[in-house]
């Protein structure tokens, strides 16, 4: 028995199965005649069981919320990495953590933040709002949507496996079981760029697991992108044409198109690296493609990736800012064009990451030109945002503060980026803290700022409750100086020649590093404030009674998602009245959300009709006779009529 090879046994078993199948014949199935399937109850109710409901949901709004939760967890985890990096750099020598830990920190910080924080959060926002904004029932492929999300938690676990396996390993040791491989898998220390030949030769087995996790997250992101593209192309309501597609959907569409072309390149490169590491191929060996090949492939993904991160942020700012300042987006069409231009140009700039590699000078100059030219559409957006705010009614609400500060700090980050696109200056600052400062002024400013702005702007819609206005403003006013304090010193140090990714540094930079770490502490405090506000307001915030929390009807910007919210509120009206807060609290509600009221003298601005439930797009903004027509004299209590 022991002599018979396994393949023979397996073949025999399969043959036996095939014989049985042939003998029994094909199963009798009813013929399809094009009629209706009967006897199948397709319920639309969500399961009552909380766990089953959230594990099996295919509803775009639920999946959006799951994305947002995952993104928040990843952001907090990556944020702990960031705080640990700053702690190490409080002292010029490695006194806090060791060099290996430091290397692991900046690696996992980068990977977590890019692939598991920013992308999922924007995908989550898109999942929740995009179908509502374009008048679709759901995403185009709801089940694939769920799959795309559920690939992410395992890929996060794989990428950050070193720590998780260690917790498992130590736990098992605690109960007396020893599994050495769990402890051998250490957090990866290769940097988020994973340059070969280093990564091909590092022994840590966790690197393979991380590469698999990255590949899996790439698959998830690509699937989600395809879903977004198909949804925007095929699921728009009749009255949503390309001409009046909202700016956020344009942004997500372009982003998804970039994902579609960029992520497969990363996936291929990762598979090649895995093969090099484990199966003796030589894609990135000197005798094969050479280590440079990795850099070309990686940056052909890597540079578009930064636009994958930032374009949704741009479009969120373009969407939210006009509503907060009471004006329409200045130059809407050019903002769309600039989005598309960035989408195309983003693929033509990858080699500026490789200026010091020894490229042919003419080729290098060509890449310098394309890299400089991508600043033009970005500047178009910036000027349009500024022009939108011009003569607008600025109310210093938390989301506005985040939008305005996001635009301002993006200008700093963008201009410092122009410098790195210029060959001679790039030679000077390549691989220094200057580069780190530059990109963090973008990815730590406009990206999370737009997310914070969106989280406050849509909080009433998402939760049906109002957030704490004072706490939110405190959060904005800690976050903004925190970001500047953390990353501006890096520009100075980098320009002076301080390399990035070093746990030790000359004494002369000690003050800069201290300032940066204090800034990071401010960011940390700010994030905690945000978390407290979100959790507490979700639990016990004041219920929303009037869907027009941002006073959008007044400026004709009561957009589709708010109209949808208004219909929902109207539907719940009967139930909600029973547990209405006392009138005094309700009066404060209006004050809570819309700060710095200026008593505009309009007498009969429009308002969506709360009674038009079910009538999606019947003349949206100009219904007369709504049940809570704005009455400036009764501003504070304008919502008392709502829902009754």
């Amino acid at each position, binding site marked *: 028995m022991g002599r018979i090879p396994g393949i023979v046994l397996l073949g025999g078993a399969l043959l036996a199965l095939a014989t049985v199948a042939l003998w029994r014949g094909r199963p009798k199935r009813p013929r399809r005649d094009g009629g209706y399937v009967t006897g199948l109850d397709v319920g639309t109710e969500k399961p009552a069981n909380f766990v089953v409901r959230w594990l099996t949901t295919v509803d775009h709004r639920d999946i959006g919320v799951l994305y947002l939760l995952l993104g928040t967890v990843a952001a907090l985890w990556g944020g702990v990495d960031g705080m640990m990096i700053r702690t190490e750099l409080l002292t010029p020598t490695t006194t*806090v953590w060791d060099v290996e830990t430091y290397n692991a920190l900046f690696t996992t910080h980068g990977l977590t933040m890019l692939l598991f924080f920013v992308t999922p959060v924007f995908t989550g926002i898109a999942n929740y709002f995009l179908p509502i904004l374009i008048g679709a029932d759901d995403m185009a492929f709801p089940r694939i949507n769920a799959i795309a999300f559920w690939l992410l938690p395992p890929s996060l676990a794989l990428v950050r496996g070193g720590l998780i396996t260690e917790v498992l390993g130590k736990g098992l040791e605690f109960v007396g079981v020893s599994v050495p491989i769990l402890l051998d898998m250490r957090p990866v220390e290769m940097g988020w760029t994973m340059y070969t030949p280093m990564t091909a030769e590092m022994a840590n087995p966790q690197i393979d697991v991380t590469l698999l996790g990255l590949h899996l997250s790439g698959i998830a992101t690509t699937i989600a992108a395809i879903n977004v593209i198909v949804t925007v192309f095929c699921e728009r309501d009749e009255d949503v044409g390309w001409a009046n597609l909202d700016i956020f959907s344009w942004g997500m569409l372009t982003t998804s198109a970039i994902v579609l072309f960029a992520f497969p390149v990363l996936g291929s490169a990762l598979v090649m690296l895995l093969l090099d590491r484990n199966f003796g191929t030589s894609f990135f060996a000197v005798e094969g493609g050479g280590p440079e090949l990795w850099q070309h492939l990686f940056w052909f993904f890597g540079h578009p990736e930064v636009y994958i991160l930032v374009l949704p942020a741009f479009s969120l700012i373009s969407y939210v800012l006009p509503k907060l300042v009471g004006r329409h987006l200045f130059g809407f069409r050019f903002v769309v064009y600039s989005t598309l231009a960035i989408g195309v140009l983003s693929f033509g700039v990858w080699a500026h990451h490789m200026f010091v590699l020894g490229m042919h000078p003419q080729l290098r100059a060509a890449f310098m030109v394309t890299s400089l030219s991508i600043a033009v559409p970005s500047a178009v957006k910036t000027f349009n945002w500024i022009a939108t705010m011009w003569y607008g009614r600025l109310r210093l609400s938390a989301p506005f503060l985040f939008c305005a500060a996001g635009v301002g700090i993006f200008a700093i980050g963008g201009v410092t980026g122009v410098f790195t696109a210029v060959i001679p200056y790039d030679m000077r600052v390549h691989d220094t803290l200057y580069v780190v400062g530059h990109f963090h002024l973008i990815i730590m400013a406009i990206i999370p700022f737009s997310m914070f702005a969106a989280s406050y702007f849509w909080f009433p819609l998402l939760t049906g409750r109002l957030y704490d206005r004072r706490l939110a403003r405190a959060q904005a006013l800690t976050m903004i100086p925190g970001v500047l304090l953390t990353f501006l010193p890096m520009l100075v140090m980098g320009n002076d020649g301080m390399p990035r990714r070093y746990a030790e540094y000359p004494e002369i930079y000690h003050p800069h590093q201290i300032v940066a770490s204090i800034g990071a502490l401010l960011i940390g405090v700010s994030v905690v404030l945000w978390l407290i506000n979100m959790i507490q307001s979700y639990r016990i915030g004041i219920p929303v009674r009037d869907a027009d929390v941002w006073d959008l009807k007044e400026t004709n910007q009561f957009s589709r998602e708010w109209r949808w919210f208004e219909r929902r509120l109207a539907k719940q009206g009967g139930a909600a009245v029973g547990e209405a807060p006392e009138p005094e609290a309700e009066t404060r509600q209006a004050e809570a959300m819309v700060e710095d009221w200026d008593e505009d003298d309009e007498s009969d601005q429009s308002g969506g009709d709360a009674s038009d439930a079910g009538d999606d797009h019947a003349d949206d903004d100009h219904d007369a006779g709504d049940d809570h027509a704005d009455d400036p004299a009764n501003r504070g209590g304008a919502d008392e009529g709502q829902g009754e």
Partner: protein
Amino acid sequence: MDTQRVVSVIAAGVVATGVISGTLIMLEVQMRYAMHLFDAVARFVGLPGQRFLGFVIYSFAGVVVWPLAFLALRPYLPRGPDPAAQGAVFATALWVVFVITGSGGLDGPILVVYLVFTLLAHWAYGFTLGAVYGYLTGETPTARGEPAAW
């Protein structure tokens, strides 16, 4: 003190102890064992060096002693009527004692990190304790009367 509240608060203690334990374990591993958190726990319960026994007593305190103390002290704690906010205040007091007895030989930057993260872990404990207790007993207010209560 009625039975339903005691049972609720102990159930909340189980959840909250789970939360803080998970947080501390992840922190300890993430920090590459530089914080010696479990030694601190052992010192905190008066058994320096005996981590396992220390862990048992720590669990008992987290599940039974602190929740009952929370229940008894709740009328006097600020940030009411939300039990979760009161729990966070309560846990801040616990944290003060924890860092006094448990910071050991840490100093410099790592002490700052230790203080911040142990405070956050304690807040997570207290908040969970109060939130679960409020959920089980229905004592969580449905809406805050004042927008800026925090």
